[in-house]
């Protein structure tokens, strides 16, 4: 990967009165000169990260990702970042924008004043510039078995596993996760204790625990009901505040704490209270209507 010097931007006089001043254009959408301070890190040459400032002319309706694309196309082709869909669906373009975890395709420039600071997602190792290494999240995601483990396996010839709309609604909200990892960047517990399984992975475990077709809760509890699981969560609630898909991971984790506590009480305090996890699992996934 080359790291050639940045090319200069087409000449443009910086307007007085701030870094993001509006440049009205008769007959078209207004433009503004935006200053972005982007964290740069090249593992081949750098020992630490540094900020690089760019000035770029943007359309009023642009998002931060558009500004980065403009920088890469016209000013500095060495800038690295991930993106794909540009519509808050793929979850690829998560970054810290003025210290807040955001999808850069969902962060409108008009909502910011002054210099916009763009950094890679917090709490993840930086591969290069704004690109982080998601390996830890991917490994944890696998550990919670985020897939339906049928209670009773049956041959395809017996047909599909049916589900009522009410049973679907019980977990639907938690199935909306786009794996953007903003919740991990917002969670101070994950930053301080990297062994924490974390909001998104635990929420997906909850999603499948609540699924009426699933019987895998007992297996997931080996990960979920541990100090690295839900009990590492201290309910800061930042995960839910930054979630672009309104999944509300904080609610999932608090619900899992309650069911895990019930498990413990049944197993340890009630005589003959065996297989509590299985019992709760059936309640979680059972008929609602």
């Amino acid at each position, binding site marked *: 990967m080359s790291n050639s010097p940045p090319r200069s931007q087409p000449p443009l006089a910086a307007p007085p009165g701030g870094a993001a001043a509006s440049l009205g254009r008769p007959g078209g959408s207004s433009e503004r000169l935006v200053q972005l301070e982007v964290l740069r890190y090249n593992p081949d040459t750098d020992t630490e990260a540094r900020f690089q400032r760019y000035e770029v002319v943007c359309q009023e309706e642009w998002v931060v990702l558009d500004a980065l694309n403009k920088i890469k196309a016209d000013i500095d082709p060495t800038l690295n970042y991930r993106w794909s869909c540009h519509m808050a669906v793929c979850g690829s373009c998560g970054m810290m924008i003025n210290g807040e975890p955001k999808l850069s395709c969902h962060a409108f420039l008009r909502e910011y004043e002054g210099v916009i600071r763009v950094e890679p997602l917090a709490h993840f190792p*930086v591969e290069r510039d704004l690109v982080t290494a998601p390996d830890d999240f991917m490994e944890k995601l696998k550990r919670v078995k985020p897939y339906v483990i049928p209670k009773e396996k049956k041959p395809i010839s017996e047909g599909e596993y049916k589900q009522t709309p009410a049973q679907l609604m019980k977990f639907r909200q938690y199935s909306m996760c786009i794996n953007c990892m903003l919740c991990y960047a917002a969670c101070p517990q994950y930053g301080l204790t990297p062994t924490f399984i974390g909001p998104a992975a635990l929420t997906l475990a909850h999603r499948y625990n609540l699924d009426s077709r699933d019987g895998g809760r007992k297996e997931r509890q080996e990960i979920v009901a541990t100090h690295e699981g839900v009990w590492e969560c201290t309910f800061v609630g930042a995960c839910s505040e930054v979630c672009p898909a309104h999944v509300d991971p904080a609610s999932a984790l608090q619900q899992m704490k309650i069911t895990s506590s019930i498990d413990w009480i049944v197993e340890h305090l009630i005589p003959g209270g065996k297989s509590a996890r299985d019992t709760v699992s059936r309640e979680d996934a059972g008929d609602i209507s």
Partner: protein
Amino acid sequence: MSRRPLVRECPPTTWYFRQPRYLRYMSREITSIFVGAYCVLLVVGLQRLSAGPAAWEAFLLGLRSADSIVFHLLALAAASYHAATWFNATQKAMPVQIGEDFVPGNLISGAHYVAWAVLSAVILYLAGVF
């Protein structure tokens, strides 16, 4: 291309200054100190009560001091804030589903506020306040 990711540590003692929401969280957690201190005060009161009338009267006299009144006001404010944060959280931790719909969260939290008010009134009544 070498792979040498840059690890940026989360500052262990100053992380909560990064975001206002982290400060709100810490303020919620700090209120538990006052809640805990008040529980200790109640235990001490019970111990004084068991020690006889003289010890109990001395304890009551101590409660009327200016320092004690300031502490009680602080503890009341802290306990109220602490309770409010948890009542607001109940709608996340205890959703109620009826058919395909969920009961509005405000109703769940609101029910806790109502229960709080009713129980407080009962305790004040039993204490002879009104």
